[in-house]
């Protein structure tokens, strides 16, 4: 808990500093627009929509910059970075995976929490099986969950444990990431999925979301950190500052993320 307090303090300080520099310089945009070269961002699949917009907005004020987005499950991204895939920034759906990068020396600063997310149940349009709670999931034929070791799978397991619901592994199809998991409900024959609330919101044309009460729910902490040894440290820092800025927060909020 102490560390989170520290993180919040650091974040607040960082935003204060960025605010101050904004005041002292006549045009902060002109300053950041000096950024050149490439910026490769590895981000959790659940950040796909939000980070696509964030990157687009960031490019608007940094026209000389080439931004590359690499989405995957957080644990896949960690494996990629650890085996030397070039990446400047890592945004994870949890802090555990960033800690793995800290342990392997790929991240040398304290990762910052930039948003929070919760889990929700997704069912087919019209809710044909009349699912109302986590308990109802036990009576369904097939449930889609993320892989056991990726964050959304770990969070889903906590939700089930908290609700005291046990689902046989033979009824669980495991998606390779959160989008694939949701797709098993939207396009396939899975009756329900437990995924991030933001993903349910993004897919509202194909699935219906059912809220999970906070007593059974988890707070997924999204962390961001620059990658040690990246070729574009200035670009990485500027992008992280942008994600943590008020403008960045407004974008994240519009996709259903909660205040860090």
């Amino acid at each position: 808990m102490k560390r989170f307090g520290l993180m919040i303090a650091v974040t607040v300080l960082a935003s204060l500093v960025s605010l101050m520099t904004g005041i002292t310089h006549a045009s902060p945009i002109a300053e950041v627009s000096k950024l050149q070269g490439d910026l490769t961002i590895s981000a959790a699949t659940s950040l796909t929509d939000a980070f696509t917009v964030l990157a687009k907005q960031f490019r608007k004020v940094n026209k000389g910059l080439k931004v590359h987005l690499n989405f995957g499950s957080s644990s896949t991204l960690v494996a990629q970075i650890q085996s030397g895939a070039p990446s400047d920034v890592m945004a994870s759906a949890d802090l555990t995976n960033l800690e793995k990068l800290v342990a392997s020396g790929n991240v040398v600063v304290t990762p910052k929490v930039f948003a929070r997310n919760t889990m929700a149940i997704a069912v087919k349009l019209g809710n044909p099986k009349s699912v109302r709670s986590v308990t109802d999931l036990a009576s369904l034929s097939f449930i889609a969950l993320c892989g056991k070791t990726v964050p959304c799978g770990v969070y889903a397991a906590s939700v089930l444990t908290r609700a005291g619901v046990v689902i046989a592994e033979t009824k669980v199809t495991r998606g390779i990431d959160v989008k694939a998991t949701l797709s098993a409900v939207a396009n396939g024959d899975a009756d329900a999925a437990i995924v991030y609330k933001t993903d349910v919101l993004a897919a509202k044309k194909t699935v219906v979301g059912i809220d999970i009460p906070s007593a059974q729910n988890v707070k997924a902490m999204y962390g961001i950190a620059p990658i040690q040894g990246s070729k574009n440290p200035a670009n990485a820092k500027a992008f992280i500052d942008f994600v943590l800025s008020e403008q960045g927060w407004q974008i994240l909020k519009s996709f259903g993320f909660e205040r860090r």
Partner: protein
Amino acid sequence: MSTKKRRVGAETPAFVWVGASCALLFLLLPLVGLLKRVAWSGIFGSVTSGPASEALRLSLITSVFATMIALVLGLPLAWVLARIEFRGRSMVRALVMLPMVLPPVVGGVALLGAYGKSNGLIGGWLFDVFGLQLTFSPLGVVIAEAFVALPFLVMAVESGLRSIDPRFEESAATMGLGPSERFWKVTFRLLAPSLIAGVAVAWARALGEFGATITFAGNIEGRTQTTPLAVYLLLESDPEAAYALSFVLLAVCVAVLVAMRGSWMGRRS
């Protein structure tokens, strides 16, 4: 033989040798990389552990059934394509080959469109009438694997049928053999090498299937999680087991290639 080889070698321009060596290196380097990562001492334990051994067992059963479907359906189709002239034959052939070039995930989506219980063309009907659900079932894995393996069998068998000199069958006919006798006693025997090659390639393809399987049949441990799916998921949680399983798949594919080489040599002699 050896003098002939040397003469041909002398005529080969240097860039061909360089290019061919690069190509070989390009193909072999990742294999060496995989072998280097396999923890040989613990390989038996990794492969016989819970999810890995279940995935191998499931892969073995489903791929054999998928190959049988490919054989039963593919042989007549190859026959029609090779021996019967009809309008639009090249069109039909192109359609048959489609799953070979189609991204497997797209194949899986297409299978959902046909056999999905909730929104497939005949999936709902199959469930209502026969209580049959292909998605999330081992049978669905077989269907997905057969879908991608069938074209490989058709292609091998069709080219085999084309290479058979029709005079053999004609002379068998003049000796008074009926169509089915002619098939088993003449055509089938001449076709055997390509048939074996086709079966081997189709089986290897079914064994390695990933995209169509996970999209259509899902990824349920012990039920639809085949070896390639297990490799992908274990890569994150238990890399040692993932590399061990990868090695098993690699070894099986090498064995298939060796067997095919044998069948081709048989054809030559």
